[in-house]
């Protein structure tokens, strides 16, 4: 029995878990990015930069945050490919849903059918 377990244990994906220090580091980065986001938000209440620029920056920052959570806390990075598949494909569909609805409900699409 034991031998058989060894065999399977040896190639389990996502085995190389990180050290606790690394998790603290990631959390630190997350905290910094969050601080940046809020800073940007507060500073730009005076409209120092254009709204679209602020939104773009915020989106980039939060994408970094999300990616960090998914890759390191959820260990998607380095884990089996199937997990990436079952998470990223629906994420793509979700993005499609969001973007297409934004287009469909914007005023740019013509009126007459």
């Amino acid at each position, binding site marked *: 029995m034991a031998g058989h*377990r060894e065999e399977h244990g040896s190639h389990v994906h996502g085995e190389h878990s990180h050290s606790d220090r690394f*998790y603290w580091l990631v959390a630190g980065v997350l905290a910094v990015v*969050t601080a940046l986001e809020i800073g940007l938000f507060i500073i730009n209440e005076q409209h120092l930069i254009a709204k679209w620029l602020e939104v773009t920056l*915020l989106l980039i920052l939060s994408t970094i945050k*999300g990616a960090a959570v998914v890759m390191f806390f*959820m260990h998607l990075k380095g884990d089996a490919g199937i997990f990436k598949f079952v998470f990223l494909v*629906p994420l793509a569909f979700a993005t499609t849903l969001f973007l297409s609805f934004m287009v469909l409900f914007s005023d740019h699409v013509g009126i007459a059918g």
Partner: protein
Amino acid sequence: MSESSMTRPRAAAVHHTSLGVDNRKLGVWAFIGSETLFFATLITTYFVFAPVNRMRPDFQDPRKFLDIELTTVLASILLASSLTMVLALSAIKRGDRRWFTTWLLATVGLGLAFIGGQAYEFNHLYHEGLTLSSSLFGTTFFVLTGFHGTHVAIGVIWLLSVFFKVRAYPDSPENPMDVEIAGLYWHFVDLVWVAIFVLVYLI
């Protein structure tokens, strides 16, 4: 026996499966995929109505109602809970039951704090005149964040059940996987908040 299964539990945690991954972990990831579309729909609805809200006579301005300080606290709580969650997982993988208990209960505590904070926020908004029926902003905001809050609550229950299961069966080699999948769900709920935080509160 119990000693060894706590120290080297990984070997047994995965039976031979076609992809070499744990069934439940695969199931939870797929479930998270499904939940992604659940929240995407709620967020999409929020954005469909954001401009309509602005044009209506009963317009309620999100910027006027949403309190950036409280939100920052909430966001930090959830992010911190993700850290404690992953530390709890790391502890149980090491077989370190004490730190596992500490970190897991910390996660539960942070989750409860988030729910409490949200309850406070909702109550506050309600008294300021923002309700489900006061405006399109109220309608979309409460349903979106409310369902996120519900997910946090479910996550807390899930974590507690894992906690009690590990206590009841401390030697079970499945414990790390139980913690791992509960953690996946927990991180996902945090992830959703990362999105809500920027999309609803900041933009």
